[in-house]
């Protein structure tokens, strides 16, 4: 591992995830991303004098589902709290969050670590809060502009234990977390749009030590790729400090992706005493067991169990099952293809191949209906179409739609299985390649593939390759 032998890295993550709701956490304003600045605002999210928060039930349902999906205990009573600090994009001068009594605690998430196999990270707590607005420092010269569209958008904060042993593990956890949250439909977890944001606590210690080293907090990590980079840089920095005989100072480090470096946040900005206290504008959040059970019932099958089921039910290799269940839309699509009659492994190959390649070029759209793909797979399997011809038909289906057989006929790629016709092409090929015929007869049997290829070429791909080989073998044996 990079970063010095004999050192162990310890990482814990605090992840903020925007919940995908129509409206904000405590008012009716739209929570949509990307509108013109300060257009999704009202007295509540502007923090106007006298305005009060009214909780969004939909956001609470999302948060409870996320907590349940992460195996947390959802508390019957949780308490909103004010986190007080001054910043121009924080309209009320405090953020409504939860502190002493969070929504949920004690969950876990199992992910595949690159070096350690399956690792279970502890979810220490999950709480609900509201987002702040955005300060735009580069929009106007020598002035900071504030956009409050984001102020009040619902968030959950998910805090893990110090459970990761490398930046790669931290990234793998985050990707698994993103997968779960996308699956249950509570967030789109788009780091570039800021709907998933992560802060990391990083420390290092000599291998074999059990006490934790002094940690720093790394912030401003804006993409999955930067997670690994930022944490790697900070780990290396700490190791260098310790190996140089120095000590790590507990502080906040900001990652700058432009030069792949971390720098301490100015201490003035971080010396916060947030003065948390229970939010007097909101009664304690009381959740009945029935409500929690209802949210549990609404949870879809989660990625890990879907993957196992795909292996068991469809006889797929682990790797295939992992690829197919990476996203819920693809998994559902695959099952649609199988349910429409396609053979499971063939369907898996088509979805992982043609379908995902096409989706990648078309904004993740699954353009060929599952039923059409199942028919196409049937045509290839039954020998009506060669695999190559099948791909051409798929492209037509994707671009123009229609019925697979009709398209195949129109393209003239239906395989010819009439031995008389195939015999004609074989005669043509053998006549044109007398030398190769001689070599074959003197024992160079691997030339069969060459002859089949030539027959396919002569037939413009229409010949049934199996039949062609059979006829070739008969003729070359005589």
């Amino acid at each position, binding site marked *: 591992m990079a970063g010095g032998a004999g050192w162990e890295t310890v990482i814990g993550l605090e992840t903020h995830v925007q919940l995908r709701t129509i409206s904000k956490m405590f008012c009716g304003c739209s929570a949509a991303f990307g509108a013109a600045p300060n257009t999704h605002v009202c*007295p509540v999210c*502007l*923090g*106007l*004098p*006298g*305005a*009060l*928060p*009214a*909780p969004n039930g939909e956001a609470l349902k999302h948060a409870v589902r996320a907590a349940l999906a992460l195996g947390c205990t959802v508390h019957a009573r949780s308490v909103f709290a*004010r986190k*007080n600090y*001054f*910043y*121009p994009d924080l*309209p*009320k*001068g*405090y953020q409504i969050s939860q502190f002493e009594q969070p929504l949920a605690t004690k969950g876990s998430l199992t992910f595949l670590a690159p070096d350690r196999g399956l690792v279970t990270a502890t979810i220490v707590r999950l709480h609900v809060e509201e987002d702040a607005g955005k300060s735009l420092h580069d929009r106007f010269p020598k002035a*900071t502009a*504030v956009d409050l569209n984001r102020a009040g958008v619902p968030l959950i904060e998910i805090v893990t234990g110090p459970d990761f042993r490398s930046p790669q593990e931290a990234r793998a956890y985050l990707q698994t977390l993103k997968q779960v949250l996308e699956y249950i439909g509570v967030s789109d977890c788009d780091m570039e749009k800021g709907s998933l944001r992560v802060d990391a606590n990083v420390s290092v210690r000599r291998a074999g030590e059990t006490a934790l080293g002094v940690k720093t907090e790394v912030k401003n990590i804006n993409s999955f790729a930067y997670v690994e980079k930022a944490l790697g840089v900070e780990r290396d920095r700490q190791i260098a400090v310790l190996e140089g005989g120095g000590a790590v100072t507990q502080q906040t480090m900001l990652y700058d992706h432009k030069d792949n470096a971390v720098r301490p946040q100015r201490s*003035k900005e971080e010396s916060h*005493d947030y*003065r*948390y*206290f229970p939010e*007097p*504008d*909101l*009664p304690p959040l009381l959740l009945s067991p029935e409500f929690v059970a209802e949210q549990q019932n609404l949870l879809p099958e989660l990625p890990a169990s879907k993957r196992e089921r795909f292996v068991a039910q469809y006889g797929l290799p682990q790797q295939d099952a992992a690829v197919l269940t990476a996203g819920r839309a693809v998994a559902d699509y695959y099952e649609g293809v199988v349910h429409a009659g396609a053979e499971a492994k063939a369907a898996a190959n088509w979805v992982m191949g043609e379908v995902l390649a096409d989706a990648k070029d078309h904004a993740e759209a699954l353009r060929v209906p599952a039923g059409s793909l199942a028919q196409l797979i049937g045509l290839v399997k039954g020998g009506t179409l060669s695999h190559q011809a099948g791909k051409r038909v798929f492209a037509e289906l994707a671009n123009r739609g229609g019925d697979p057989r009709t398209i195949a006929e129109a393209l003239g790629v239906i395989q010819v299985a009439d031995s008389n016709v195939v015999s004609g092409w074989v005669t043509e090929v053998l006549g044109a390649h007398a030398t190769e015929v001689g070599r074959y007869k003197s024992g160079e049997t691997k030339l069969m593939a060459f002859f089949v290829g030539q027959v396919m070429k002569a037939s413009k791909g229409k010949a049934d390759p199996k039949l062609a080989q059979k006829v070739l073998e008969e003729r070359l044996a005589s």
Partner: protein
Amino acid sequence: MTGEAKSAADRLVKVKRLNALLTPVKELRKSLNEQAGAARPTGVLYGMPVAVKDNICTLEFTTTCGSKILDGYRSPYEATAITKLKAAGALIAGKTNCDEFAMGSSTEHSAYGRSMHPLDKTRVPGGSSGGSAALVAAGAVPAALGSETGGSVRQPASFCGVVGIKPTYGRVSRYGLVAFGSSLDQIGALGRSVHDAARVLSVISGRDPKDATCEDRDPLRLPTVPESLQGFVIGLPREYFPSDLDPAVRRACDRAVRLMKEQGAAVREVSLPHTQYAVPTYYVIAPAEASSNLARFDGVRYGPRAEEAGDVRDLYRRTRGEGFGPEVRRRILVGTYVLSAGYYDAYYRRAQQMRALIAQDFRNAFDRGVDLLFTPTTPTTAFKAGEKLADPVSMYLSDVFTVTANLAGLPAISVPVGRVKGLPVGGQFIGQAFLEDEMLEAAYALERVVPATEEA
């Protein structure tokens, strides 16, 4: 109805010397005229002018909270209580002077100058809803809205000789009331009579989805005036009649008690043993919440912003330093301190524990068969302007009999019970949560028999 709008404005203009109204005369006349044209003739308060404390958001007038930091601030929305008043046909008769952000007991802490007591301009009308109380007492309006955090409706009502009601916490929506101590704040009503105050309270009460702390209940139903007080058990908490109570105030309250007995009420002494801790408890919790509630006044989005500020911290420091008066700054400092790491447990958490004990005192009294408590509203009559300005603690102690109802979230009403050297004395009923109707019945009965303007 434009004639009524004009006479309402005339009455308000006539008492301009009290400095109780912050709205400029011209603006007031114009608005009242427009409102009269638009008011709903079917409303139960049709044509009734109601003056509004300046910490309640209105579309018609600026909302300054008596502070420079909101100088000229015009709210783009109005408080739920205002919407309900207008729907009932009332006219919003201007904004009344108050202690800055409702922090004070004399209306001397207003950035717009102190208000005068209508009977003696050298005295204060009480506070923080002093402007509202003074206007009602001077006969300029039949009723006004005030707000309470620790007695800010009842104390000025008592000083000015009018009726002031603080409803149960959660009875009236706080949406649009500029927050001071959110867990204590309620909008209250002041009126010439129990009936005037009660009908305004009834209109503004009831559920509001915009305020999560407002109970999902129908508006308060007004009781009828009872024939007698037969069947009422009234408790006199001994902690509210201390040996050093102003003897004249005691006399006035004793007379009220005697009159209630004559009407058939059973009277018994009770004890609320944690009363002595109420003021210190209040002065931890209210400033703590205020320090957070007032953080939004930073000059970034509204209100005056300090010129020539350097960085953003300098902007905050200057805007807030220049915009807030000394009492508000004092409470923000206290509140910030009691919530700080290392002090939270010693102050804020302990205060919350004490608050629970104070509320339990009341429940114990009510559980023992007492329907209502009766106490003096304030330890003294209206004091002289300037008398307590230099000594914040003596100012705070004028709330000693009123803060408990806010800490316990209970309804309370101050009713004039007599005069001492020409100055009004108020008697207070404290009722059970959401039993305002019972409390109002007792107040009606007392009001009917007590010689409110006679020396006790």
